[in-house]
């Protein structure tokens, strides 16, 4: 899958009008990462109450694929328990946008926000030290994403 096929209506729309775009002033956790290949970068802020993601926003610079995937990911995540948020997989995001067969170099655009989400979650768990084991596992998961 390549070329213009992937640029359907939904992706183009999301790229101009992303959902959950912005910052959360009094977030419980925030994380920043970037794609070394193209310079795209994403921040995710979360409010977490009772081990539940009660609010999530992202901001940063990215291509249409990155923006659309970030929109979809934050939408999926919102309201989930940490436990369930951890289980979000790449195809949950890609499937939503019909991007399962994206070429390797663009996969990184698509999954940057998922990587940031996982990193944000293990940062949160790390700060709330009781689940160090989980934290390492999540860290490994994030680094294995692509």
């Amino acid at each position: 899958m390549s070329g213009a096929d992937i640029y359907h209506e939904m992706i183009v729309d999301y790229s101009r009008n992303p959902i959950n775009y912005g910052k959360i002033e009094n977030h419980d956790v925030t994380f920043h990462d970037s794609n070394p290949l193209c310079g795209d970068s994403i921040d995710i802020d979360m409010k977490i109450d009772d081990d539940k993601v009660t609010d999530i926003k992202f901001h940063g610079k990215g291509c249409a694929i990155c923006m659309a995937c970030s929109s979809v990911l934050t939408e999926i995540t919102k309201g989930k328990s940490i436990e369930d948020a951890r289980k979000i997989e790449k195809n949950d995001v890609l499937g939503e946008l019909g991007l399962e067969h994206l070429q390797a170099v663009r996969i990184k655009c698509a999954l940057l926000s998922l990587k940031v989400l996982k990193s944000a979650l293990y940062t949160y768990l790390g700060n709330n030290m009781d689940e160090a084991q989980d934290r390492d596992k999540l860290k490994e998961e994030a680094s294995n994403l692509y």
Partner: protein
Amino acid sequence: MQSSESLFENIRKDFPILERKVRDNKQLVYLDNASTTQKPNQVIDAITDYYQNHNANIHRAVYALAEEATEAYESTRDKIANFINIKDRREIIFVRGTTEAINLVSYAWGRTHLKEGDIVVTTEYEHHSNIVPWQLATQEKHAKLEYIGMDDNGELILDDLDKILATGKVKLVTFSLMSNVLGTITDAKKIIDKCKAAGVLTLIDGAQAVPHMKVDVEELGCDFFAFSGHKMLGPTGIGVLWVRKSVLETMSPFHGGGDMIREVHKYETTWNDLPYKFEAGTPNIADVVGFGAAIDYLTKIGMDNIRQHEIELTKYAIDEFSKVKGLHIYGTKDISKRGGVISFNFADVHPHDVAQIIDEEGIAVRSGHHCAQVLMERLDVAATSRASFYIYNTREEVDVLINSLNKVAKVFKL
């Protein structure tokens, strides 16, 4: 000088890859030459011939193959000396590419000579390979890194240099002779004159300049000069560091190992003569030989002809780009001050998306930060798209590029 047209007409035949069809059977249009160039048969054949007929390790053995291999390897050193006008072949060190060349300087010269409080000066439009090594070296030595700023025309602000030099603490000024993003040709003479007056060494990153115009290192008068073979028809894995002998003699060895030593004892070692002191281990012999063939090829065409060809093509492309609504070109429009590199953005479409959509048409352009994130910050953009030309590119290819932008406009409803 032959007319540009007749000279360049037949060149494409030497490059088999230009016949490639990509994606949906589209004719390849390769416009990412600032990143790496394609290779003519002459270069590929030289490598093949080396492996099929002469391959051996160099310098040390007395047998016939070793003699031939050494001769082939060393003759490229002479070709390079001739190509960019270096008087003493012993000042030429083979490295993997520009990145290794600059890092070698940052270790073997930088770590030896930089002291706390010293200043190294680079510019806002450098490639990461001329920024990060200096961040690392200055941090380690508690020295400082300063930048020559860039004006909105994409040219360096030399007043900045004057101010920094006035501190009296500058040890090295380093800059690229041509920006890999904007194509700006740096006024090297002026910078070097200022530095010489202040007793400051200068390093030139020639990665983008050497492939595209006549460069005379002796006349430039710098102290270090670096460039890569793969950006000038040569193989990957080979590049050059030139260092003025009086400076080279003050440098510590970098890599330790075979070929760079004179005598190794258990606890002490003495060093080989120049340039071998800085060429440890088995070098990339075959690609040095291939690089020699690339230099022969370029010499035959003539660097002034190449520059002329690219000026014409760039002028044409800039004119055509200017007609596209919403298209923004970065850098100067004064064609005499730029090489064949055009960075652009198209309306609000992210360069990654532009590149992907036109890839469908067979067009290879680069999009991203081009290893110049400091410049991206200065331009206040996340990224740009970049088309960059070489000897085999044509006006027809520029037309294909321009046309492909219609498709981008359609997808993104511009």
